[in-house]
């Protein structure tokens, strides 16, 4: 399941929706990404821009790829857009499987792919002065390790 939204999410509620009434899930991994203040502590807010239409398609592709690679009972990706403050949630990935290795690996894979393929861009606002965040080289390397 894929959602792009401005509203916040609650991890516990989302996990419960995926697992409730099921007895075939042994392991649930969640990853949540938060707006971290910049090293100078000057971040006022952050604007998440995205490419409507392509975003949803790309997230769905990435999720389908995870479900092909690992035996997942359920998966979920939520990404927020719009204006966010330091400490706010940005992204949530949830994977559920019978065993923990599949849940851990697929959640990590989803995040690595999302970081390099999902069309979102962060614009930092340090009190008037805005700055587009640069992509990190380490994100490209993290995604590359999943290519077979």
């Amino acid at each position, binding site marked *: 399941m894929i959602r792009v939204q401005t509203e916040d999410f609650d991890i516990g509620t989302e996990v419960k929706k995926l697992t409730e009434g099921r007895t075939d899930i042994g392991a649930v991994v969640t990853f949540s990404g938060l707006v971290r203040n910049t090293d100078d502590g000057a971040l006022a807010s952050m604007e998440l821009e995205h490419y409507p239409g392509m975003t949803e398609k790309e997230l769905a592709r990435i999720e389908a790829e995870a479900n092909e690679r690992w035996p997942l009972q359920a998966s979920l990706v939520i990404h927020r857009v719009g204006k966010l403050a330091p400490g706010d949630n940005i*992204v949530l990935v949830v994977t559920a499987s019978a065993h923990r290795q599949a849940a851990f690996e697929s959640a990590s894979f989803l995040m690595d792919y999302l970081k390099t393929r*999902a069309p979102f861009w962060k614009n930092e606002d340090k009190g008037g002065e805005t700055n*587009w965040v640069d*992509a990190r080289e380490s994100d490209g390397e993290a995604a590359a390790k999943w290519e077979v």
Partner: protein
Amino acid sequence: MKLLYFAWVKQKAGVAEEDVTLPGEVRDVSGVISWLKTRGEGYELAFADLSVIRCAVNQEHGDFSTPIAGASEIAFFPPVTGG
């Protein structure tokens, strides 16, 4: 043909979205970029360093050699920074 621009590519080009009629000889993404750069300073600025330009054709990641035949939407943007 619909062209879309995001993040600083949009800011430098000075446009978010436009409908254009491409010359017949433009066959791939790199041809689109060459043509755009003839259209004004904003585009020249936006596409000055192609190492930080990414593109999508019909909402799928492409590269500069991706053919545009049959495409209805091409987007240009910097490397993504979500998540």
